[in-house]
């Protein structure tokens, strides 16, 4: 087993109205390549903050945070941006597609930060759209797609750079039951067939059931871990 995320004694607090509000306290967590992890907890428990820290869009106050063997807390703003472009695929609750770009262009967008040629970018983007079964909607704008289809485009965008890990913040939070199931099927399939490491924040127990590992957060502290059967032997340890 290879650790992809290593977190030790990590803490994070925010300043609110002159008061220091602890959001995460002494978090220790290890995730392996190919893990599909669900982070659950009530609102304000710190699960999205933890996800942001792992994804390199926020910085911890203290503790160790290593992703793919690299201590990302050492990075400056621009290095971190470059690192995110190479190693993290994002899936958001509200899809966060660029409304002025087509599905294809949205998927191709992260590739413009790479050194791929135009032709290579096109091949990668087409392949990613194929994986989410949306090739026939490549020229549609987000406003012409359903919520489920938009989220699939977002998944294709998250996949297209072949990132080390995919972070998903409430990926089914804005979808109806049928679309949510389709998205979860897709994530599950990506995890199983491509061995993509997925960290998902969710309130939804049905969504969490698809993950192999479910971690609960309460008031910034990791509480319980639930392991579920999975095709491979990877696991998380606290």
């Amino acid at each position, binding site marked *: 087993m290879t650790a992809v995320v290593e977190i030790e004694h990590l803490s994070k607090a*925010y300043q609110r109205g002159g008061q220091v509000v602890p*959001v995460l306290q002494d978090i220790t967590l290890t995730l392996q390549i190919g893990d599909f992890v669900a982070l659950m*907890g009530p*609102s*304000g*428990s*710190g*699960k*999205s*903050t933890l*996800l*942001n820290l792992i*994804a390199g*869009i*926020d910085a911890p106050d203290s503790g160790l945070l290593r992703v793919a063997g690299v201590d990302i807390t050492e990075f400056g*703003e*621009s290095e971190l*941006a*470059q*690192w*995110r*472009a*190479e190693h*993290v695929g*994002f899936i*958001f609750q*509200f899809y*966060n597609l*660029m*409304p*002025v*770009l087509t599905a294809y*262009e949205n998927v191709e*967008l*992260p590739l*413009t*930060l790479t050194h791929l040629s135009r032709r290579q970018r096109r091949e990668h983007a087409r392949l990613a759209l194929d994986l989410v079964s949306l090739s026939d909607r490549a020229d549609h704008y987000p406003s012409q797609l359903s919520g489920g289809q938009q989220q699939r485009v977002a998944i294709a*965008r998250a996949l297209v750079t072949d990132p080390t890990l995919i972070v998903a*913040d409430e990926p089914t939070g804005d979808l109806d039951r049928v679309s949510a199931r389709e998205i979860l099927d897709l994530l599950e399939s990506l995890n199983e067939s491509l061995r993509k490491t997925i960290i998902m*924040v969710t309130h939804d127990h049905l969504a969490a059931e698809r993950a192999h590992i479910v971690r609960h957060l309460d008031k910034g502290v990791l509480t319980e871990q639930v392991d579920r059967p999975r095709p491979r032997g990877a696991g998380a340890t606290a």
Partner: protein
Amino acid sequence: MNYVLKLIARNTLRHPLRTLLTVLGIVVAITAFGLLRTTVDAWYAGAEASSASRLVVRNKNSLTFPLPLYYGPKIRLIEGVESVSAAQWFAGIYIDKKNFFPQFAVDPHTYFALFPEFVIPPEQMKAFQLDRRGAIAGRKIVEKFGWKLGDQIPLIGTIYPGTWSFVLRGVYTGANSRTDETQFFLHWDNLNETLKKVAPDSANQVGIFLVGLKNAREAPLVAQRIDAQFRNSRAETLTETEKAFQLSFVAMTEAILLVIQAVSFLVIAIIMAVMANTMAMTARERRREYATLKALGFPVRFIAALIIGESLFIACAAGALGTWLIYPAAAYVGRRFGTIFPVFNVSDNTVIMALAATLLVGLVAAAGPALQASTVKVSEGFRAVG
């Protein structure tokens, strides 16, 4: 780069009505700015068109006091003087007061040699010189009043009472676009002969002498020599360059000019505020998109380029249109001004200032939103503290 331009272009057209109204505002502001600057330029047109090799000699006490005719030959003998001519303000009314145009009684044999910018066909000049009742008029007033050569032109005198009738013998055109084509010239002799009969005390006097110099660089020295020649005489002189003479008229209305200039810059400041508000609103609405781009790994400069690019795109497109519109607007306003501003041309300087103002509007309007969008943290952009 390709994606930046694509995003800028598509973002610009995202809210067509908002973009259209913003563009419209900038177009109006830039055109208004150009017109106001052109008005200021028109004020200075006389001074700008003046020659460095000509001096104007007037009565030291006031322009309203004349100079004796016999000063002319004396000035001609002063070192550095090439030629001398005289002119007298006539101030007649053509049919109605609103038909104002400047009229001068001049020496037909020497005056136009000093003003090569007034281009007159030789046969018309000869006809004018031979006819004491003859007159030469500028192309613009000839066209405005539909005059033809040989037409009788009646003027009701205000300084010199009575109805005066002149025969149009020549039409001058300007050698360049800065030349005033609204002036009307009559024989000084004609005026003087009449004055000898009706007001002998006013005869043999001129309003100003115009002096042609051998060397333009000697202008200050020659001016001193002329004034020294007539010091302690019954009509002391004040000699100045033609430009200084013209600027002395501008100085009388300097306060109005200052207001016009202030308003022209105020127009730009207002549209800058409007544009800044539009861009701030736009950046606020796209906060989540900028956060997404940042999360995906796009650098801060990419976000800034999107905002600044969109602002510049709108400002420059509108500014170019507004600048282009200055020309027909100035042509229309120039026609409406008629002979009040005989030269109402859009200068290169005005165009450069309008385009510079456009760039400034685009950059200043984008600066705040670009800085804000660039510095905001991704997590704050999403407002996602779970």
